[in-house]
């Protein structure tokens, strides 16, 4: 092989370096303007929008979670409140029941007392009436039987004494 020919593979040509250097810079500028600029911007924008939608989805998820947690808490609170109310109502009712019973009992007692007093009164009245009546009847009967043999005044005294004896006994 010709050594000059083989040497050509390692030749450093300044002319080629100049051409490539200049045209490479032109290609770089053109590529930046027409290719990479729009492509990179579009990629960036798409990634941003994806990230944004992911973020907003996460935010919405968090909010939903919070809401559901709040709901749970409210529900639990309401339940506790309801329980408390029920208990209170029950206690109140019990108290009212006891009160009513107490009251009715005392009222009944009063009525009973009143009735007993009335009965006593009536009894006394009846007793008095009966006494006078019995005395009259006895007097009448005795007078009828004895036919005025005795002095009315003495008889009456006799009978009264008798009756007094009875009532006292």
């Amino acid at each position, binding site marked *: *092989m*010709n050594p*000059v*020919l*083989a040497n*050509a*593979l*390692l*030749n*450093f*040509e*300044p*002319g*080629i*370096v*100049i*051409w*490539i*250097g200049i*045209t*490479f*810079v032109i*290609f*770089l500028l*053109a*590529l*930046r303007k*027409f*290719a*990479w*600029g*729009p*492509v*990179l*911007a*579009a*990629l960036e*924008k*798409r990634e941003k*929008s994806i990230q944004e939608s992911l973020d907003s989805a996460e935010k919405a998820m968090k909010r939903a979670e919070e809401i559901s947690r709040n709901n749970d808490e409210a529900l639990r609170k309401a339940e506790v409140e309801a329980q408390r109310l029920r208990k209170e109502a029950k206690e109140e009712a019990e108290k009212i029941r006891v009160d009513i019973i107490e009251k009715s009992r005392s009222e009944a007692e009063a009525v009973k007392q009143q009735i007993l007093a009335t009965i006593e009164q009536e009894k006394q009245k009846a007793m008095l009436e009966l006494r006078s009546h019995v005395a009259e009847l006895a007097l009448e009967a005795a007078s009828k039987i004895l036919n005025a043999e005795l002095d009315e005044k003495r008889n009456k005294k006799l009978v009264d004494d008798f009756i007094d004896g009875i009532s006292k006994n």
Partner: protein
Amino acid sequence: MNKFVRTAFLLLFALLYVTPTTVIAQDEERNYGDIDVIAKLGDRYYIEFEPLPKLYLPRILISEGFHFFGSTKSAMNSGLFQDQFYVENPQAFVAGESGPVTYKLVRTDGTPVTLDLSISKHILWFWLAGFLTLFIFGRMARKYEAGIGRETAPKGAGMNFAEVLIVYLRDEVVKANIGEEKYMKFAPYLLSCFFMILFMNLFGLAPWGQTPTSDISVTAALAITTFFMVNLNGTKDYWKHVFAMPGIPKFMLIIMIPVEVLGLFTKPFALAVRLFANMLSGKMLILSMLGMIFVFAGLYGAGLGLASALLWVPFTLFIYALKVFAAFLQAYIFTMFSALFIGMALEDHSHHDEHHHAETAAAH
């Protein structure tokens, strides 16, 4: 298969020991056709799509004035310039008949020209790579501008594949080395580097194709661009590291400054040589492998040459596949190191030890 390969190999090497002088004597008269391997590998001032005739490229020479010739031959016939081969071997030159051999033009008296600004084959293929990148990604950009891929998912295999590469380079190469804030400034340069080098590397694998990156001049131009990208964007800290390395005794600077300044130039030099040597060697290996068929045909006759092709062609295919991989790998490595160097130049606060380790590791 394994057994077959081994047997074939043994047979071929056994044949090399049997010096077939008689066969060579018989074959001396025969001409198997001339294949100029160096012309396929090196730079030339013509383009060729066989079996179409060569299309000679114009020569632009600066030597005591500006000279323009339609082709190398017309430059030789002008009497002002001569192919270097004929300067060294004047007896081989037949005026008006002899064509160019090395295509390296010197003045007729043998002194070199001041500057050879001719458009060569490699420059043309470089431009092709540039226009191809511009065409592919410009179209892609228009698609993005129309809304496909911007608001919706990207459409089509090409767009998806390109996007995978772009996003990978942007995230793993540019952002990883340069950082989130400044990446937009350097991503276009590094992406252009990657795709143009990739296309140039792959051109050589196509029929009639040439690999401009197998030319040291081309890779040097690329590396010089990286050199400027690095040093024009260097921060104060970067220059301080070069000229006043912090944390070492003052008298050591006498040694450190030359080393660091040398380091500025070895980095792009390594970039250029790595890419050029990888690309050239791959192509050379493929041509050598296929050349073995002709060597065997020359030594043992056409029949055995043809038979040995059964061995060399699969080998070549294997190397070819390896070269496809290397085309991607070398484009990636060039981009990766460019990004690394730019990232190092941009570093603001000094992590002295880390920085220095990264630098030495990258230089190797």
